[in-house]
């Protein structure tokens, strides 16, 4: 790799890290919550943020869209959150999974862990393809169906994904709550132990398998993946400029065959492939009406 080329890759990595840090700081900007061990109670909490960011986090200024969907589904007499779904459809149609690559705080945590210089694990192709479907099952079963279908005597359900799976909730909400509040510490039992162990497993796996949660488990990633193919923000590989060097595929944290799968739902639009491409074959664009004409996928 030439010096100029290496600089471009470093510049891109630094830019993306700055955007990710800024997004995490803005979404969790209520510093008094961290200091005092309580959560923000202002009106902005009625607004869903476009990424997985737990509203039980002491700093959170908005609501998690996945939590919001489950809250409405689990409530009396309603089974579907039009509001959260509508906001996510708007965000998905505009940006697709660019939001995963640049704005998601839990994505940032995984990216930072992936920087630990240990040899990365390549998931076998067939297992990788199969496991990708898991996140769609999580979205349909744990976020949409179970909170509405399994209800108690009072007619309310539970946020199944938040309660039993979400590692972002444990990291951003559970751990600070338990550390800052002695009463909650006493209440932490089997469920907290399960969620803590699961979070730890996902974080440890993230060191060896970059973005493992985004690849296989994130229901929000699954939702945005449905829009990635036609979102206004899109990426393409020029077949006339591509020299099939394989650098883009080697750099991809989602283990994609970039020239073939750049338009798939799995691409988080992190732009690493674009930065490493020696011939400028990978391009990105944002438009509602216009598309680059030449592409391979």
């Amino acid at each position, binding site marked *: 790799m030439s010096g100029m080329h290496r600089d471009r890759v470093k510049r891109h990595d630094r830019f993306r890290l700055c955007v990710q840090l800024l997004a995490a700081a803005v979404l969790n900007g209520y510093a008094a919550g961290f200091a005092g061990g309580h959560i923000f109670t202002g009106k902005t909490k009625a607004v*869903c943020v476009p990424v997985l960011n737990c509203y039980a986090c002491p700093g959170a200024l908005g609501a998690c869209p996945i939590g919001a969907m489950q809250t409405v589904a689990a409530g009396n007499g309603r089974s579907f959150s039009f509001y959260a779904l509508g*906001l996510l459809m708007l965000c998905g149609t505009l940006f697709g999974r660019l939001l995963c690559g640049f704005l998601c705080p839990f994505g940032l945590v995984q990216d930072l862990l992936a920087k630990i210089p240990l040899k990365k694990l390549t998931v076998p192709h067939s297992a990788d393809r199969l496991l990708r479907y898991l996140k769609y099952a999580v979205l349909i079963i744990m976020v949409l169906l179970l909170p509405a279908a399994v209800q108690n005597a009072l007619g309310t359900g539970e946020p199944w994904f938040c309660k039993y799976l979400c590692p972002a909730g*444990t990291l951003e909400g559970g751990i600070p*709550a338990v550390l800052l509040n002695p009463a*909650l510490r006493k209440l932490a039992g089997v469920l907290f132990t399960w969620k803590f162990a699961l979070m730890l497993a996902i974080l440890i796996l993230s060191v060896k398998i970059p973005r493992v949660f985004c690849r296989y488990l994130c229901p929000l990633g699954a939702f945005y993946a449905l829009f990635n193919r036609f979102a206004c923000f899109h990426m393409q590989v020029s077949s006339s400029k591509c020299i099939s060097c394989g650098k883009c595929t080697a750099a991809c944290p989602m283990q994609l065959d970039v020239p073939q799968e750049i338009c798939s739902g799995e691409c988080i639009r992190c732009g690493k492939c674009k930065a490493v491409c020696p011939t400028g074959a990978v391009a990105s664009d944002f438009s509602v009406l216009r598309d680059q004409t030449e592409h391979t996928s």
Partner: protein
Amino acid sequence: MKRKHILRFFGLLCGAALTVLGVLRGEPDTILQKAVKLCLECIGIG
């Protein structure tokens, strides 16, 4: 290409319509009520 444009317009239109419908149903209030209290289930305690 045309299909992509149609899907984009459909996505934006549906997204906006569903958001307005949700607001009219009072969903932001439901979400606010949940989000301003510490959700014990979400943090793995309740």
